[in-house]
């Protein structure tokens, strides 16, 4: 046994409080250690070269690096000693920084503790076994969940790189929220004009399958090997036969169903497509409202369909498909302001949400783009826009800023003045957050060139009076209470996670924050990854984002998938659990405690009881190497010590504890 110990200063991070030279000196006398030294930055290139050279020069077979947390640099030094000719797993880290120098004062005891930590690492590395990484299969086909602009962009990027993609969308058409918008800030491009070409690209791309009206129901497996159960809901339309001519849409007698796409500002029929540019451009039948399904009457659409594409007997189809990587792009929901009594509990028809106003402004919307108010269809003479309705408001459960409202408030206030020259606009705001390219300039344009009255303060109450809405609020710049009479009030309601975000997170095994936004693996350095390999986030399912940020993140997620798929093979992590089948009693306790579902019971031959003539089977635990994360829960739970965590085996841990006990005893 020839162990080398390398003590790092970490600049002054460790050396300021720990006497690193004394630690290296003490290490020299530890059992098995043949070489020890200290250096300013072990992780630097010269530092790593020192390790490699020492392996050769002193014929080291094991290495201890006394520096920072293994979470930071264990992979660095595993690579380093592998380059130096050792098995990568013959290195142990003693964490002198997070566990010692950062948390203690400069005292002799601090250096003593550092020596204890090194001694324990030396004891552990003595018991290390060489480990191997195995290749695991990699399916090069991607699943994108959610067909908004994030999912569309990710699907296009992945498919353009040459990999097949299934784009699953819950509603009858892809397009998401962006398809509902009128124009986009700060350039005022028409949202449909820039979105629909991408939707069409998706539809015509030979490597993209769009599964609309479909939902993910179950996700199993692991990176490179996901098995996903997807329900394709019955559209009651035979896809291959339907030409999208739209004759059925004209004749369906069930009218007046509030249109989801128009945010209840308009209506649709029982057979419908959400909007004229829908992709796929084929209708679906809403069975909850269709007379054929409710009363077994009507059947008009089947009678007039020239291609016989209507199929009332169609059933949901549940498919289990394999994917190598998953992009989650499920977007956001909007908070319903009807819990706000001070704004009328959602009962005043002329107090609407900003997305409803988008539909009113949109030329293909329920009013053909004429700005009228819902109560009486009259053109408003004064409109108020209220920002932060539910956002930055702990009382209503969203302490965060919804990020895009300041900009769309400004956009809507500008567009309204552009269409109706004699309308007065008021924007009540807390702060104007316009921190994007061209954003601040845009807000100033709304104020200066389009005459919007910006009032800094919140609105305490809205009530109807003489056919108008009275807004009572504060102008905190004037320090006065203000009252404004308007014809229409537009609320910038908080963006929030989809109602079922938590369910999807559970299905995918990814984590969420306190609001149910999906959590990225690292807030700064891993913004599109999650803690489960092979799953990536795109768009507002993670946190409120505007379109440019969403598109950028979608492309980032796609590039992660492309990066994964372009690998020759993926390697398993060897520091995972394994089961000693000879001693395993098949009790199944580990199956129950495993947080990743990585363990199952299998039948194997009982070697003890079997004879050549008579095979006896027994059930034992078995670890799926692709799924196991090496958390060690099974090893802790196992009553017969049959579950072991490679790299953290009982003999290694006990060696550490024994070493520490000896050191403490010696001190007395």
């Amino acid at each position, binding site marked *: 046994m020839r162990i080398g110990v390398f003590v790092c200063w970490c600049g002054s991070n460790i050396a300021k409080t720990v006497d690193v030279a004394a630690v290296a000196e003490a290490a020299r006398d530890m059992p098995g250690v043949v070489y020890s030294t200290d250096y300013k930055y072990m992780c630097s290139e010269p530092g790593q070269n020192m390790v490699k050279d020492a392996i050769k020069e002193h014929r080291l077979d094991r290495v201890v690096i006394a520096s920072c947390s293994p979470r930071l640099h264990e992979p660095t030094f595993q690579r380093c000693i592998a380059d130096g000719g050792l098995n990568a797993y013959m290195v142990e880290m003693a964490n002198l920084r997070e566990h010692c120098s950062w948390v203690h004062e400069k005292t002799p005891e601090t250096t003593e503790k550092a020596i204890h930590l090194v001694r324990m690492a030396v004891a552990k590395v003595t018991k290390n076994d060489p480990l191997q990484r195995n290749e695991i299969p990699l399916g090069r086909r991607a699943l994108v969940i959610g067909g908004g602009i994030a999912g569309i962009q990710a699907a296009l990027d992945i498919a353009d790189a040459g990999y097949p993609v299934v784009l699953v969308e819950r509603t009858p058409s892809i397009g998401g929220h962006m398809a509902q918008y009128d124009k986009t800030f700060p350039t005022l491009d028409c949202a449909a004009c820039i979105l629909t070409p991408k939707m069409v690209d998706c539809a015509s791309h030979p490597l993209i399958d769009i599964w609309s009206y479909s939902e993910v129901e179950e996700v199993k497996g692991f990176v490179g090997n996901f098995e996903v159960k997807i329900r394709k809901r019955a559209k009651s339309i035979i896809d291959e036969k339907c030409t999208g001519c739209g004759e059925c849409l004209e004749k369906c007698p069930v009218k007046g169903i509030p249109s989801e796409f128009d945010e209840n500002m308009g209506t649709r029929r029982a057979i419908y497509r959400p909007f004229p540019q829908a992709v796929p451009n084929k209708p679906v039948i809403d069975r909850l409202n269709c007379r054929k399904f409710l009363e077994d009457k009507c059947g008009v659409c089947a009678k007039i369909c020239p291609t016989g594409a209507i199929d009332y007997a169609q059933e949901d189809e549940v498919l289990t498909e394999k994917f190598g990587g998953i992009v989650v792009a499920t977007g956001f929901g909007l908070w319903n302001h009807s819990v*706000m*009594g*001070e704004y009328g*509990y959602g009962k005043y028809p002329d107090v609407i949400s900003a997305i409803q106003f988008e539909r009113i402004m949109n030329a293909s919307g329920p009013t053909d783009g004429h700005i009228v108010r819902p109560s009486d269809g009259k053109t408003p003479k004064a409109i108020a826009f209220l920002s932060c309705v539910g956002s930055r408001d702990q009382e209503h459960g969203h302490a965060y800023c919804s990020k895009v409202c300041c900009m769309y408030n400004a956009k809507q206030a500008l567009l309204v003045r552009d269409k109706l020259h004699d309308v007065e606009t008021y924007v009540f705001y807390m702060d104007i957050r316009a921190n994007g390219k061209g954003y601040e300039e845009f807000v100033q344009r709304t104020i200066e060139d389009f005459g919007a009255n910006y009032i800094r303060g919140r609105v305490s*109450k809205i*009530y*109807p*009076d003489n056919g108008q809405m009275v807004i009572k609020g504060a102008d905190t710049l004037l320090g006065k209470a203000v009252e404004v009479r308007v014809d229409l009030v537009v609320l910038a309601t908080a963006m929030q996670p989809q109602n079922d975000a938590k369910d999807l997170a559970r299905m995918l095994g990814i984590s969420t924050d306190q609001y149910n936004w999906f959590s990225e693996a690292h807030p700064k350095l891993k913004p599109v990854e999650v803690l489960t390999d092979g799953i990536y986030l795109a768009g507002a399912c993670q946190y409120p984002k505007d379109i440019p940020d969403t598109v950028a993140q979608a492309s980032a997620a796609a590039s992660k998938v492309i990066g994964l798929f372009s690998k020759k093979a993926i390697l398993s992590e060897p520091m995972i659990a394994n089961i000693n089948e000879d001693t395993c009693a098949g009790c199944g306790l580990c199956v129950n405690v495993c947080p990743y579902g990585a363990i199952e019971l299998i039948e194997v031959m009982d070697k003890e009881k079997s004879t050549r003539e008579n095979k006896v089977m027994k059930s034992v635990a078995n670890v799926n190497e692709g799924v196991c994360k090496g958390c060690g829960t099974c090893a802790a739970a196992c009553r017969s010590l049959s579950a072991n965590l490679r790299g953290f085996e009982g003999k290694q841990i006990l060696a550490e504890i024994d070493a520490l006990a000896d050191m403490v005893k010696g001190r007395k």
Partner: protein
Amino acid sequence: MKYAYFPGCSLESTAKEFQESTQLVGDAIGVELVHIDDWNCCGATSAHNLDHRLSVALPARNLGIAEGMGMDVVAPCAACYNRMRSAEVELKANVKLRDDINADLEKPFTGAISVKSSLEVFTTSEALAKVSDGIRKKLTGLKPACYYGCLLVRPPKVLGFDDPENPQSLDKAMETIGAEPVEWYFKNECCGASFGLSKSEIVVKLVGDIISNAKKHGANCIVTACPLCMTNLEMRQAAAGKLRGEDLTMPVFYFTELMGLAMEVRGIKKCFASHLVDVNSALDAITADGAMVG
């Protein structure tokens, strides 16, 4: 039901008719109100502006005495109710403060009882059922604007017996006795409260807004559960009318007076005599066909 009754300063002075009607209605529907002996000021408004500990300690003494009586407290005045309920919630949550204050009290408050508003106690479904049984004359034709003011229902996390933005308990009580409460939008606005004396111009403006909105929506009276609201609405309506150039003459009642009137409780009519604004215009609006039940 037996409650420890906390009158506070208003109900023994400017709001005597609230006290009398509360007692009369309580007797009629079997809510027994036992006076808290040797009660002290609830701490509104001075104490809680100046000294937080004192603002909790003053109600704590009353709560301690009431706890000794073994009954929940009823405080009809909205300000008393607000202060005492706030103190109760804080003392129940903050054991350290409670121990500290209890060290100064003869009768400690351990958190065994609770504070309620008389509106809360008189508008439970059981109480309203008793009222309903006792009605002798429905108040048909009376169109009250139910006015809760600001203190009775806010902050909702502390008080929370009714909806803070569109409270309903007064409306329900008025419907029970056959009156027809109007839909209006100033139910929970501030009347100016204790600015009534120090900054009356604010109160005049606010009272004007409130009465004007009530009138616009067809009310022929306002009904309240707060002595401060009553004082401001009655005392400042003439000045408010002058300010707005409108006739803002509007009778104002305590809800208990109208409950008592509907039940024809003996002695209730005496209460009307102490009002600053003549209530007869409202009483005359009650149609004859109401007088029938029972």
